[in-house]
C-alpha cells in the first residue's frame, strides 16, 4: 500500500524541515523516499503537515482510570456519541471509555500515547484496556518507586539486583519504562504518613527518596532503557514545593545518560512549581524551574497544563490524593497495591476565580514559555489530572498567542498579576516549536525518535494534516482558528492508513503496544528471584505464577530490546 502526501507545509523538526513544501511518501506503513505512480495521493494544498502526535504522559488505561469511571457516573453524561457502522459508542469527558480514548486522540492528529503509571500487580488490567483502545500505538510505564524489592535492593546498594528487578518488573508488567511516583511516599501512606522531602527515611526500609531516585536512575542507564527515569516528585501539590523540585532536578547531574536523551524526566511541572507557604499566599515559581532547565542538560519535563473546568485527579501519590480530597471536600477513592504503591482518585474542578488554580494554570504556560529549548518541555495536561487531553488545542493556542493569554488573564482575579510572571511574557511559540513539544520532543524523551515523531525515511507512516496554511495565518491574532484546526485534524494517517478525514474516523486499525525486554546476566536474575519468591511466599496475596502478564494480553506487541551496559557515575 502506497500513499503520497503532496503540497504540504511540512514541519518536521528532527529533519530540519520548517514549513517547506515537501512531499511525504509512505509505503507498507513506513515513510520512504519515493513511492510509485500507483500510490494514492492526498493533496495537502499548502496545509500544515506534521508527524503524528506523540504523548509521553497521559492516563488512558488501567485500574485508576477505571476507578475514575466508577466514581464519576456524572462524567459519562458528557461526550456521548452513539455507535456508527465503523465506531463503537463513546462517553465521558475526563474519564472517557476506552474507545473514545483512541478516537479522540486520533481526531486530534495523535497516533502514539503512553499511559504514565501502572503498578506491576495491576498491569493485566492496563493491558486489557490498552487492547480495546483503537487506532493509536501505546505503551505503559511501570511503577517502581515504592516497591518493597526496590527499597530492599537500594538499601543493600546492590545495583545488579535492582537492575534485574527492574528488567523482570518490565517483563512482568509488559511495561515500557521506569515510573517513580513520590518515592517512599507510597509506602509511608500505608501508615497514614508521607515523606516531606528527599532525605526523610522510609521506616522499615531505611532508605530515602534521594537514594531511590539516584539508584533507579543508575539502573535505568545500566539497562540502557529507551526512556529515562520518569519522575513524579515528592511534595507534589504543596505550596513551596518548588524547592523540593529544584533539589530533585539537581540529582540528574549524578548520572550520565546511556543514550542521546535525558536521564530524568520530571513530569507535570504545574503541580511541582509552587511557591508560597499556603493556599492564600500561593504563587507560581515555574520561572525558577525554567531557569534551572535553561542551565542544565539531561533533564526534560512536561507541562501538566491545568485546564479550567472539570478534571479527575488520579495518581499513585496516595497521601496527596487524601490531602486533595480534603481541600476540595469531594469524592475520594483510596487504593493500596500491596507491596508496590498507594493510589488515589479525586474529581476536581479548576476555577478561574480561585487564585491557586489560576496560578497553577499559569505555571504550566510559564514553564513552556520561559524554557528556551522546547525539547525540554513537552505539551501535556497530565490527562485527566490537569484536564482532559482533548484540550491540547487550547494549550497550543495559548502558547502561540500572547493576545489569547492576555484575554484569558482578564478573566482571572486581579491578584493573578502578583502571583505569576505570565502577564509579562510575550514569547509566542511557532509551528516548529509546537511540533517539537508534541512530536519530536516527546519521541526523543521516550527514546523512540528513530521511528516516531518525524517524517524521514524509516519512520512510522504516522502523519497529521491540519486545516491551516502556515504561510497565510497569524497565530497570534487568529488563535481561534489555530485552536479549531488542532482540535480536529483534516487527516490523520496511522501506519500509512487514513484513519481520520475532516475530523471524522474513517478506519479503526489496531495499534501496537510497546514494551521493553531488557536482558541482564542470568545469575543476577537468579539471586534477585530468591528475594522475590520470598516476598510472594510471605506477603503477596497472589501467587507468582498469576502475577506475570502473559503474551495473550498483547495481541499487537512491539518489543524494544535493551540490556545491561556499563554506566558512568560521577
Amino acid at each position, binding site marked *: 500500500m502506497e500513499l503520497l502526501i503532496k503540497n504540504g507545509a511540512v514541519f518536521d523538526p528532527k529533519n530540519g524541515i520548517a514549513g517547506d513544501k515537501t512531499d511525504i511518501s509512505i509505503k507498507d506503513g513506513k515513510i520512504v523516499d519515493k513511492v510509485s505512480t500507483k500510490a494514492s495521493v492526498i493533496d495537502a494544498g499548502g496545509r500544515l503537515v506534521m508527524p503524528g502526535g506523540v504523548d509521553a504522559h497521559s492516563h488512558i488505561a488501567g485500574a485508576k482510570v477505571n476507578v475514575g469511571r466508577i*466514581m464519576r*457516573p*456524572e462524567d459519562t453524561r458528557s461526550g456521548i456519541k452513539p455507535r456508527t457502522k465503523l465506531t463503537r459508542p463513546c462517553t465521558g469527558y475526563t474519564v472517557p471509555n476506552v474507545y473514545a480514548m483512541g478516537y479522540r486522540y486520533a481526531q486530534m492528529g495523535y497516533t502514539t500515547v503512553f499511559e504514565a503509571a501502572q503498578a506491576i500487580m495491576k498491569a493485566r488490567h492496563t493491558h486489557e484496556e490498552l487492547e480495546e483502545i483503537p487506532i493509536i500505538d501505546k505503551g505503559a510505564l511501570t511503577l517502581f518507586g515504592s516497591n518493597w524489592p526496590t527499597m530492599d535492593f537500594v538499601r543493600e546498594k546492590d545495583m545488579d539486583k535492582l537492575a534485574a528487578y527492574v528488567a523482570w518488573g518490565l517483563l512482568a508488567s509488559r511495561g515500557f519504562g521506569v515510573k517513580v511516583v513520590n518515592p517512599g511516599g507510597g509506602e509511608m501512606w500505608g501508615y497514614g504518613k508521607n515523606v516531606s522531602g528527599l532525605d526523610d527515611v522510609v521506616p522499615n526500609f531505611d532508605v530515602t527518596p534521594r537514594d531511590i531516585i539516584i539508584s533507579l536512575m543508575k539502573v535505568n542507564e545500566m539497562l540502557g532503557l529507551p526512556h529515562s527515569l520518569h519522575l513524579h516528585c515528592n511534595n507534589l501539590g504543596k505550596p513551596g514545593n518548588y524547592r523540593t523540585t529544584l533539589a530533585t532536578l539537581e540529582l540528574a547531574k549524578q548520572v550520565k545518560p546511556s543514550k542521546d536523551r535525558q536521564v530524568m524526566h520530571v513530569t507535570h511541572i504545574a503541580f511541582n512549581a509552587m511557591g508560597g507557604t499556603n493556599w492564600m499566599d500561593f504563587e507560581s515559581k515555574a520561572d525558577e524551574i525554567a531557569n534551572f532547565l535553561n542551565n542544565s542538560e539531561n533533564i526534560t519535563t512536561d507541562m501538566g497544563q491545568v485546564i479550567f473546568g472539570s478534571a479527575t485527579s488520579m495518581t499513585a501519590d496516595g497521601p496527596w490524593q487524601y490531602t486533595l480530597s480534603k481541600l476540595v471536600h*469531594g469524592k475520594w477513592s483510596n487504593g493500596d497495591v500491596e507491596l508496590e504503591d498507594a493510589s488515589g482518585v479525586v474529581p476536581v474542578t479548576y476555577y478561574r476565580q480561585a487564585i491557586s488554580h489560576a496560578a497553577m494554570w499559569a505555571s504550566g504556560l510559564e514553564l513552556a514559555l520561559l524554557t528556551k529549548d522546547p525539547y525540554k518541555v513537552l505539551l501535556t495536561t497530565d490527562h485527566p489530572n490537569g484536564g482532559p487531553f482533548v484540550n491540547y488545542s487550547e494549550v497550543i493556542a495559548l502558547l502561540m498567542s500572547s493576545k489569547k493569554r492576555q484575554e484569558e488573564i482578564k478573566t482571572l482575579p486581579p491578584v493573578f498579576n502578583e502571583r505569576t510572571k505570565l502577564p509579562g511574557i510575550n514569547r509566542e511559540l511557532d509551528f516548529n516549536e509546537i511540533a517539537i513539544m508534541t512530536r519530536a520532543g516527546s519521541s526523543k524523551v521516550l527514546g523512540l525518535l528513530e521511528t516516531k515523531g518525524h517524517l524521514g525515511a524509516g519512520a512510522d507512516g504516522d502523519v497529521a494534516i491540519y486545516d491551516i496554511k502556515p504561510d497565510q495565518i497569524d497565530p497570534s491574532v487568529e488563535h481561534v482558528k489555530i485552536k479549531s484546526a488542532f482540535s480536529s485534524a483534516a487527516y490523520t494517517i496511522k501506519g500509512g492508513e487514513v484513519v481520520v478525514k475532516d475530523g471524522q474516523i474513517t478506519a479503526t486499525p489496531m495499534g501496537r503496544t510497546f514494551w521493553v525486554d531488557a536482558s541482564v546476566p542470568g545469575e543476577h536474575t537468579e539471586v534477585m528471584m530468591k528475594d522475590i519468591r520470598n516476598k510472594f511466599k510471605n506477603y503477596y496475596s497472589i501467587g507468582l505464577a498469576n502475577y506475570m502478564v502473559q503474551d495473550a494480553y498483547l495481541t499487537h506487541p512491539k518489543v524494544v530490546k535493551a540490556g545491561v551496559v556499563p554506566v558512568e557515575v560521577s
Partner: protein
Amino acid sequence: MQTVTIKPKKEIKISVEAENISPDKFAGKSEKDIQSLEAYLGNHKTTLGELFSIKVEGRGAAADTKIVMEGNFSRVKRIGEGMSAGLIMIKGNVDMHLGTKMSGGKITLSGNADSWAGREMKGGELIIEGSAGYYLGAGYRGETCGMRGGKITVMGSALDFLGEHMCGGEIIVKGNAGILAGISNNGGKIVIEGNTSRPGSEMAKGTIIINGAVAEMMPVFKLEGTEAVDGVTYKKYTGDVIVGGKGVLYVK
C-alpha cells in the same frame, strides 16, 4: 391557549422514553408535528403518534400550553423533562423521572410516580397526589447537586433517599417517608408530615422538619435545645457533625 390531550393507544408494557412530552416541545405545533416527535419504546425508535392518540386544540406558546394525559402511563418515563413553562395534568400513574430537570411550569399527577420524580429540578411545581418512589427530587448518580429550586408536594408517601444531594427548593411529603431523607443535602427545605427514619445523614446545609415520629436518629446530630417553627415546638438538631455540616433538623 393550546390544549394537547394524550391517551395511550393500547397498553404499554415496555418502558417508553417520552422526554418529548413537554409544553416546550409541543408549543405552537400541529397535531401532526406532535405525533411525529420521537420516542423510544424499549430500544426501538418510534414516535409519540405511534404510541398515543394525540389531540390538539388551539395554538400557544409554552406558557399557554396545557397537556392533559389520561390513562395508564406507568411505563412512560421522563414526562415533562426540562420543561420551563406551561402545565401538564396527568390522570393516572407514571414511570420514573417525571419532571426531571424542570425549571418552570407545573405538573399535577393524580396517581403515583415511580422513582426519581423531580430529579435535578430547578424551578416550577410538581404535585403528586398519590405516592412517590425512591430518590424524589434527588440528584443524578455522582453529581453533587440534586434539586436546586422549585417545589414538590406529595400527598401520599415517598420511599427512601428523597431530596438526596438537594441544594435548594422545597419538598413536602404529607404521608410517611423512607429512610435517609435529605441524605448529603446541601440546602433546601424538606417537610415530612408523617413518620420517617434516619433523616439527614451527611447533611451539609438545609432544613428538614419532621412532624411524625422518627424511628431512629443518625448519631451524627447535635441537640441544640428546642425551638418553635410556625408556632410548633421542635427539638432542634444541627449536623451532620462528621462533615462539619450546618444543616438543621427539627424533630417533635
